Each structure stands twice: as structure tokens, then as C-alpha cells.
């Protein structure tokens, strides 16, 4: 358990403030299992924050808690989550629905699986517009085409009518990003969006995310297990292990002078594979 | 380590246990019929015909004065016999064909499975009825006909399961050290395809009972005076106003047997299938 970060930014609220969040999983028999333990994360406007950890570290659960989309048997045991000044942890389902896709958007892990195979891409990408702005899919088409352009999908007029299986892996991921961007959310939660992609495609997606932050000022929570990406993309990093935050800090400082043993271990394991000089900033 | 009764995962096996209880009861009736039934199923007594349930005849009597309860109990024999043998025929031949197709592949596979698919495209009752027409009406032929109806289903399952097993390494190694085809099949393949076959067998039992009673109902199965739930239901049709119990009881017996086997099948599927339940 570490201190929540101290920040030297001007006053104002962080886009996302998670304080002492704990998530428990109800087992059929026995005591509930604590999957996330007193986690605190701050994400300020326009920041790209990396949440790094191995599988099972609780990073995905934390992100799902933010959307109040935890799986059936999991629940928030304690702690608070705020989007600006809006508390999320006890928010009604109805009110959460208003926020999802509109102010907080999810870019999930496996784009192929996360797209409806029997629905045209255009309709899916434009669905947030339908749901929140009441636009019919016809009228949303203009905006959808622009969204596809924004994520560098060529021939958007043609692509809009196609189905997910007709897209390549990289295009699918970018379509998911377009979907997330539809209503200019304050916070984008990207859960390992590049894991299944080739390195070149990965680079394109990362560049795209950076553009989004630069052009629209959105904050991004970037969840990954890949230190290399974090080094390249993120401003601030949280390291998670077994449901706890082990360390956090500006990317550069974390990489140069890690304080926790676990962080050091991760770095050692990675640096022997990647030989990436230079770190983001 | 001493396992007590409490350690047994009752919850997980609940459907199998429930179904097993029902079928167990019916099996006991079938096996011990002569001792359990209060009367002989053939004892006519025209004086007591079409009596409603009473102290003397717990379920009433039929149109020839025979005790309905006794006939129902004895009819269980036929249903159970047909069910087991028909399912057995289907299981054995179906597995043989399916494993052969999966194991040898190529032309053997193509020819066998195409034929199986063809048989499969006939509705079961139609196939059973046509086979019975060809073989002649008798209980034995009913067993064969219904067994034949089951063969395609089992063969498909056995073939699919064989394919899965064949991809595993140990078959490769077995062949590499020179194991004969027959040994490979019996020692390596069969034990591993047992699980899905068992589930299918339970389903087959229940379906066999349904088919047998349908055939008897149509007059193509057990012939009077042999009691079969199906033909009892058929005769009952003529006395629906005077003696409704003649139509209710045999049907209820069929219903319970089918339910029992269905529960076992469902239960086995839940237990044996490594399915995530959330």
C-alpha cells in the first residue's frame, strides 16, 4: 500500500480519482476473496496513465469497477471512485448507463471478440450516438464516417457497411477506438488494446492514442503488462501486484530509479528482451 | 483419509441421484414384478372389468378385468428391456462405426459417415415404423429397429470424440512403439470417449422408451395380451369416458421413465462437462 500520488498540478479535480478501492469476490463456500486491496489511482485531465501488472494483478477488475461493470460475484467492498466530482461507487445502474460510452469509454482487450459479428461496423461504432444523443443510425452515419477517418481507417464509406470479420486485427482495434471516441469521453479506459497485434500495428494504435490525448484532451487509463509500451506512451505509471499498488510515479523516474523490488524485477525481465533506449516524456 | 457421507458432493450429483431414484424404482418393479404385483397381469375376470381404483385394485381394472397396477408393473419389464437392448445395440454398433471412421479416416470415414448422415435425416419415428414394417412386429424386432435408429447418433459422437483423442500425443507414441490397431482402440481411445457416450446413452434410454411405447401404441410393438405401456394406452383410448384411468396410468408410467432417464442424462452432462458455471 503506497501513498496516493502527490501532484504539483494546479487545483482542479482529477478526471478519475480512485481511493482505497477494494474489490471482493464471493465464493460459493467460505470467506470472500479480496481481489483488489486498497488501490488508489489518480488520473488528471490529458494524462495517459499506465497501470501495469501481470495477469491476475487486479488491473482489469479495477477498470471494470470504474464502469460499475464488475462480474456477477465481484463487488466493491470499500473505497471510492470519482469521475470529476461525481461519485461512482454507489451510483445507480441507470445513472451509470448515462455515463458509459459518453464520459467514460472502454476499449477492451480482444477487438475481434468485442465486436458483434452480425452487426455492421458502422452501426456498432455509431451506437453510442444512438444511445446517448438519440440519433438514428442513418443520421449518425456522417459522424461515424468521420470517426473512422479519425482512427485512420481508409475508405470509411465502404468500411461502414462491412462486418467485423472483414476487418484486419489492427482495423478492428481501431474501430473499437473509434467507438470509444464517439462522444468525446473525458476518460478512455484501454485494457491491453495492443496485446493481440503485430508490432507495426501496435505502433500505429499507440500513435493514435497519443493523438487523441493531444487533440481532444482526453485522459487515458492504459492497462497493460508490457513495460515497453508504458515507457513509450505513459506519463505516469502504477505498478500492481496481487491486487495492490506496489509503486507509482512518473514514467521516467520509475524506470530509472524503481523503488519497489517487484518493479525492479519487472524491469529486469523486460530490459533483457527489449533494448529500448530513451523513455517517454 | 476417511470420506464420510457429508464429503460427497450431493449438490453436484443431485440430478443424477434424483433420476437414478426414479429409474431405480422402476427397475425394481421390472425385475421383481412377479413378487411386487398383487395380481397376475393376465388374470381375466369379466365380472370386474373397468372398475375404478379401489381397495381391491389400487389402480382399477381394464376392459378384461385385469388389474391395472399389476399390468403396469409388468409392462415396465418390456420397456426396460427394450430400452437397454436398443440403447446397447445403438451404442455398440454406433461406437464401432464411429471409431472406425475416425481412426481409419479417408474413404472408410467418408463412406461410413455419409451413410450415417443419411440415416440420421429420417425422423426417428418414421424410420422405426418403416423398419418394423420390414422386420415384422415383435418385441425383439422393436429392439433391433430402435437400436438401428440410434446408431447414427452414437456413431457421430464416437467419431468426433475419437478425432479429439487422436490428436493427443499418446496415440502417436503408441503407434510408434508398434501397438496393434486393436490395442490402441481399446486401451487408449475407448476409455477417453466414455464420458460423452454415457450422456448420450442416458438420452438414448429415455428416447427408446418413448419410441417403444409409440410403436406399441400403434400396434407395432408388444402385442396383446403382453402388457406394454404403449399398447395399454392404445386400448385405453376406447374407454376414455368410462375408464379414464386406463389412459392416465400407462402414460404417467412412460412419462416418469422418460423423466428419470432425462434427469440422469442432464445430471451426467453437468458433472462430466468441464463447463464454467458462471
Amino acid at each position, binding site marked *: 500500500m503506497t501513498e496516493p500520488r502527490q501532484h504539483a498540478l494546479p487545483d482542479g479535480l482529477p478526471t478519475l480519482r480512485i481511493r482505497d478501492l477494494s474489490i471482493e469476490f464471493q465464493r460459493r463456500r467460505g470467506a470472500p476473496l479480496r481481489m483488489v486491496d486498497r488501490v488508489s489511482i489518480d488520473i488528471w485531465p490529458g494524462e495517459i496513465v499506465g497501470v501495469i501488472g501481470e495477469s491476475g494483478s487486479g488491473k482489469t477488475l479495477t477498470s471494470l469497477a470504474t464502469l460499475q461493470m464488475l462480474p456477477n460475484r465481484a463487488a466493491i467492498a470499500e473505497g471510492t471512485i470519482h469521475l470529476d466530482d461525481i461519485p461512482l461507487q454507489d451510483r445507480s445502474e441507470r445513472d451509470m448507463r448515462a455515463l458509459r*460510452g459518453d464520459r467514460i469509454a472502454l476499449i477492451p482487450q480482444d477487438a475481434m471478440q468485442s465486436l458483434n459479428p*452480425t452487426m455492421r461496423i458502422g452501426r456498432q461504432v455509431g451506437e453510442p450516438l444512438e444511445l446517448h444523443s438519440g440519433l438514428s443510425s442513418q443520421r449518425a452515419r456522417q459522424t461515424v464516417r468521420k470517426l473512422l477517418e479519425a482512427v485512420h481507417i481508409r475508405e470509411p464509406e465502404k468500411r461502414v457497411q462491412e462486418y467485423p470479420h472483414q476487418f484486419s486485427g489492427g482495423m478492428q482495434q481501431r474501430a473499437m477506438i473509434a467507438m470509444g471516441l464517439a462522444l468525446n469521453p473525458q476518460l478512455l479506459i484501454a485494457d491491453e488494446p495492443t496485446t493481440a497485434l503485430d508490432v507495426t500495428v501496435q505502433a500505429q494504435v499507440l500513435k493514435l492514442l497519443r493523438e487523441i490525448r493531444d487533440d481532444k484532451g482526453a485522459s487515458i487509463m492504459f492497462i497493460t503488462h508490457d513495460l515497453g509500451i508504458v515507457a513509450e506512451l505513459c506519463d505516469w505509471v502504477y505498478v500492481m501486484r496481487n491486487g495492490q499498488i506496489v509503486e507509482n510515479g512518473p514514467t521516467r523516474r520509475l524506470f530509472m530509479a524503481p523503488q519497489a523490488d517487484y518493479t525492479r524485477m519487472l524491469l529486469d525481465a523486460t530490459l533483457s528482451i527489449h533494448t529500448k533506449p530513451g523513455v517517454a516524456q | 483419509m476417511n470420506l464420510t457421507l457429508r464429503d460427497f458432493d450431493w449438490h453436484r450429483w443431485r440430478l443424477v441421484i434424483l433420476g437414478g431414484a426414479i429409474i431405480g424404482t422402476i427397475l425394481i418393479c421390472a425385475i421383481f414384478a412377479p413378487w411386487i404385483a398383487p395380481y397376475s397381469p393376465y388374470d381375466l375376470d369379466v365380472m370386474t372389468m373397468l372398475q375404478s381404483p379401489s381397495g381391491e385394485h389400487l389402480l382399477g381394472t381394464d376392459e378384461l378385468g385385469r388389474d391395472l397396477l399389476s399390468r403396469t408393473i409388468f409392462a415396465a419389464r418390456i420397456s426396460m428391456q427394450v430400452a437397454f437392448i436398443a440403447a446397447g445395440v445403438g451404442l455398440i454398433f454406433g461406437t464401432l462405426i464411429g471409431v472406425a471412421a475416425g481412426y481409419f479416416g479417408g474413404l472408410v470415414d467418408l463412406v461410413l459417415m455419409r451413410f450415417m448422415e*443419411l440415416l440420421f435425416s429420417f425422423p426417428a*419415428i418414421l424410420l422405426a415404423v418403416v423398419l418394423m414394417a420390414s422386420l415384422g412386429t415383435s418385441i425383439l424386432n422393436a429392439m433391433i429397429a430402435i437400436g438401428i435408429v440410434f446408431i447414427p447418433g452414437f456413431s457421430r459422437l464416437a467419431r468426433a470424440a475419437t478425432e479429439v483423442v487422436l490428436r493427443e500425443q499418446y496415440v502417436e507414441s503408441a503407434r510408434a512403439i508398434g501397438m496393434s490397431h486393436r490395442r490402441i482402440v481399446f486401451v487408449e481411445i475407448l476409455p477417453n470417449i466414455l464420458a460423452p457416450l454415457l450422456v448420450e446413452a442416458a438420452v438414448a434410454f429415455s428416447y427408446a422408451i418413448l419410441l417403444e411405447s409409440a410403436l406399441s401404441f400403434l400396434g407395432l410393438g408388444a402385442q396383446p395380451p403382453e402388457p406394454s405401456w404403449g399398447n395399454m394406452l392404445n386400448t385405453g383410448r376406447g374407454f376414455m369416458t368410462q375408464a379414464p384411468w386406463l389412459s392416465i396410468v400407462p402414460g404417467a408410467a412412460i412419462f416418469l421413465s422418460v423423466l428419470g432417464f432425462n434427469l440422469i442424462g442432464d445430471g451426467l452432462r453437468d458433472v462430466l462437462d468441464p463447463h464454467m458455471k458462471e
Partner: protein
Amino acid sequence: MGRLIATRLAAFILTLFAASVVLFMTISVLPGSAAKSALGMEATPQAIARFEAQRGLDRPLVVQYGGWLTKTLSGDFGTSFQNSVPVGPELLKRIPVTLELATLAFLIANLVAVPLGILAAARHTKRSDKATTFVATVFGAVPNFWLATLLIMVFSLHLRWLPPGGFTPFSQDPIQNLKQMIMPALSLGLVSSALLIRIMRASMIEVLSSDYIRTAHAKGATETIVIRRHALRNSLIPYMNVAAVEFGFLFGSAVVIEDIFRLPGVGSLVLVGIINRDFPVLLASALTITVFVLVVNLIVDLGVGLLDPRRIKGSRA
């Protein structure tokens, strides 16, 4: 898409041929001389021989099949052994009856199963789901001919609301027709629906646990929209495949149900053929039912192809 239709059609025709061979061979082995059945038990051996020679029953089976095939393809379905009446017209009269029965039964089955299955899946692990599954399991074990008998006892004999049997064409008297068809259709449909509820439920549960459903929720969609817009189409695809098989089963069960309700359909014709050892009648009616089943499978197969864009469109750009 055109390619899909062509291949499926070719497979259909091939299967039909093969099925006719199987049926022909099986039925030709009909024991109990057809001749005796037609001419009576006291028929002389010479009369029997003449009977058989007239109908080519003494020729090798393959030749017989060839003869039968040629005649059938030109529209001649043979003549009944029993009364020398041509089979074709009788068959034609009966086809609409069986079609009406099977279609009504199938309609009932789906109208019950789809909504209930969806509801149960949406309330998965809650009490209403468990109750629905329980009822479906129990109902699925009911023999449809028993249900038919019970329905007759209650609605015909006791309440006298509905006729216990018989058939009036819809064009002649729609109300009477429906009154006569409702119980047969219910006996078949309700039992079928029990199985189909569980299939729909399972399919929907599977779909609802997919990632793209999570995506829909993450966009702020309500439960209703998720089910209606995203889950429904995807869960109907596997459902329809099973429903097609069930439809086939319905045609088979029609043999029994038509007998109970004295409906003059193709199913009861099969029985007539068997009882009278009437080879042409049996063959023609059994084959007709098989044709129905194969056609239904073909239609559903193509229908699924329409629902599932992965089948029609090509793959990746």
C-alpha cells in the same frame, strides 16, 4: 450466396435419391405377402404369383427400383395394392393436412420457446430461471401421444369444447378446421417447446457471456437493448439449427398424432400402408415425409446463411 444455394441444393437432391433407395430397399423386404393382404388369406398360389408378376414383384430389386424411379420422376406414384387406386391423388390430398399440422405445431413451439428461453436466460441463476428450466425439463418428458389423449379427455369428452377428431379443410370452414387442429397442434407443439426453451436459453446464456455484449453494456445500453439488438440475432443462429431438427421430428410424430385425431394426413397414410402391407402406399408416404424434413432442413440452412453474415460475405479485406 448463389454458390451456397447451389451446393445445398445439390446435396439436397443427392440425399433425396439416397433416401429413396434406402426406403425402397427396406420396404421391399416387407414380410407377410402383399398379395395375401390384397387378395385375402385364401388366395391360391397361382393368384399370388399372377399378382406379383403383374406388379413386377418377382424381378430383382435393383430392376424394381429402376422401374419405380422412372415412374415416380414422371409423376406416377404407383397404384395401391389394396384397391388399385392410384396413390398420387390421395397423397396430394393429404399433404396439406400434414403440412398444416406440422406448421401449426412448430409455430406454437417457437412462440412459446423463444420468449420463455430469452426470459430464462436474462434471469439466469435467479428463481424464475430455475422454475422455467424445471418446468421445461418436466414437460419435455411428456409423451406427445399421452398429452393428446389427456387433451381429448378434458376438452372433448369432459368440457365438450372441441371435437375429438376429424378434419375439415380450412378453405371450407376455417373455424371448424382450427377447432380440429388445435389439440393435435398443441400436443406436438407444447412438448417440442419444452426442448426448445432449453435450447434457446442455453444459446442466449452463451451469447450473453460474450465480449461483444460487454462492449454493448460499456456503451451504456440497457438490458432490453442489449438483448434485442445484440444478443437475439446471434443466439437465434444456433437455435435455428436445432429447431430445424425438431421440426423434422414433428413430421415423424405426425404419424402417431394423425392416427389419434383421425386426421387424413400423410402420416396416417404411412400407417395404412403398413397395416395393409401396401407397398406403394407406404413407400410414397414415407418418402413424402422424408421430403418434408429435407426441405425444412434446406430452408433453415439457407435461412441461417442469411442471418449470419460470416457465411455470405467473403472474409477479410
